[in-house]
């Protein structure tokens, strides 16, 4: 994983992105329009036979949620959280308990 850009290190928040793996239809909108190009297509298929995005450069994520605005399948979104907050980010995190069902 590439180093975080210097700007990211001095920020008081970090971006985190959540992907609902099986809801994705592989359109690529999130990958194309993510300003710092955090995402890329996975080589793997989801349950419906699409290639969802995975994190390629997670430290660059600003949490702008443009991916969330673009995703026509409500399968991804970004948030900003204070850098002290704990949980490690990662792909394949259910967006909500309901979505995981």
């Amino acid at each position, binding site marked *: 994983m590439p180093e975080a850009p210097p700007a990211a290190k001095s920020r008081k928040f970090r971006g*985190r992105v*959540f992907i*609902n793996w099986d*809801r994705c*239809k*592989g*359109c*690529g*909108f999130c990958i*194309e*329009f993510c300003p710092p190009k955090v995402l890329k297509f996975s080589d793997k298929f989801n349950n*419906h036979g*699409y290639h969802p995005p995975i994190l390629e450069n997670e430290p660059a994520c600003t949490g702008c*949620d*443009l991916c*969330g*605005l*673009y*995703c*026509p*399948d*409500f399968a*991804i*979104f970004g*948030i900003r959280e204070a850098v002290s907050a704990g*949980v*490690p980010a*990662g792909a*394949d*995190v*259910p*967006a*909500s*308990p*309901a*979505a*995981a069902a």
Partner: protein
Amino acid sequence: MSVSPAINPVEPFLRTERMPHIWCPGCGIGTTVNCFSRALVDSKLPLDKVAVVSGIGCTGRVAGYVKLDSFHTTHGRAIPFATGLKLANPSLNVVVYSGDGDLIAIGGNHFIHAARRNVDIKVICVNNFIYGMTGGQVAPTTPLGATATTSPYGCFEAPFNLPFLAESSGAVYVARWTAYHVRHIAHSMVEAFKKKGFAFIEILAPCPTLYQRRNKLGDGLETMRYYKQHSVIKNGASTRELKLDLKGEITVGKFVDIERPTLQDAMDQRYREVLKESYCGRGGA
């Protein structure tokens, strides 16, 4: 894998048990729903005072997917239903969410008259230039030369210019964006929700399955890139001059933002003048 309390901002507005939705990969309709959810949050409207009315079609499905009071009407009849809803229950914020085929073809007459009367409803029209759900027939928005199942040699009928139609019919707020302009769409929706009267937002959106495929315009993503490259924002532009063809520049922006009495206000004023004290007003007031 960790489970996070973070939830997708659109999630509280969805009937998640109905997901995944029926829209095709790369269809732009879902993108507009994200914008709608952000606009609802930003405008702080009480959600039990928001009602969504759709007609038939791919965009018409929005009424069935949003976790708000909603009604899926017969083809073309979203606006008359919404008009009745607003007149009978003036405190509701009534949003009509439908496609170009439903709103402008089948329901075209309702559209112009609701704008003329300045009914206080917000109309969001997702324009994909074709009848989607019914199989890719030509619509009154299909650009000249574009192919549809019912125009195999290319469309030869001049299409409507929707913002011009809305403005000349009397709409008080008119904007056009593409599905690429997500933040602009959300901002326009917030403005439209604040507006009293007939507000109209046209959103051009990819229909990769029918329109783009038949016209060899690539997939949804290619269309989004095309929108990004070819859209020119001209706020306040004369709606008569707006550009939108099969290929070429697309004029987007907010074109109209004016005030004039709504149907309800005009009715109250007239009846008060004529009937004086014997007019008891609407809603038993």
